[in-house]
């Protein structure tokens, strides 16, 4: 039973399309994140939610909109996809400050 699961794992789509990536966790953690990993493996935090409330919103284009319907889910919706959005997107969770972050397996997004 996967602790942090993301769907889809692979996604190839055309420029201009709108797509969503879903994340679910069964760890009961309060905090959930979205990270973006580019082709050089650099990991950048995009958003952080705590108990369904947005805590961190880094400098991310407003084409990216996170949604947390409940504490166990944090979805990422991307409008008007651009070539530069191609990356691996990781969902992650943590129980609180100083606690281990648990990562999902990643969603490989390719925009063509």
């Amino acid at each position: 039973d996967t602790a942090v699961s993301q769907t889809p794992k692979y996604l190839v789509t055309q420029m201009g399309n709108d797509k969503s990536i879903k994340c679910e966790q069964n760890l009961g953690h309060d905090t959930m994140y979205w990270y973006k990993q580019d082709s050089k493996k650099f990991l950048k935090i995009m958003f952080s939610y705590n108990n369904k409330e947005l805590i961190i919103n880094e400098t991310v284009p407003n084409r990216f909109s996170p949604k947390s319907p409940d504490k166990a889910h944090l979805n990422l919706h991307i409008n008007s996809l651009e070539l530069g959005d191609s990356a691996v997107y990781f969902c992650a969770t943590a129980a609180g400050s100083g606690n281990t972050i648990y990562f999902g397996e990643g969603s490989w997004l390719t925009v063509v």
Partner: protein
Amino acid sequence: AQSVTQLDSQVPVFEEAPVELRCNYSSSVSVYLFWYVQYPNQGLQLLLKYLSGSTLVKGINGFEAEFNKSQTSFHLRKPSVHISDTAEYFCAVSFHSSASKIIFGSGTRLSIRP
């Protein structure tokens, strides 16, 4: 400014040789420190973490790291590496003043030669 620096983007070593991966951080507040490993086409998993107490921390797969507050470093070491240790290694920092914010270094690619 708060930041994490991994000076080495790639570290090639021979199998059974020792290795040290360097990590330095910058922060005006107390920190928690982590090392994560990422195997090809997978997510990140925790190797070890420092929260408080003993500055020498032991993790999985024979890795250890030492927190040095005066040098603001948290270098990762292993006395004898194996082919299976080939992966990307990330140092990460979270800050006591901002519980939800965790910053990752740029990663170090460890490649093991037979």
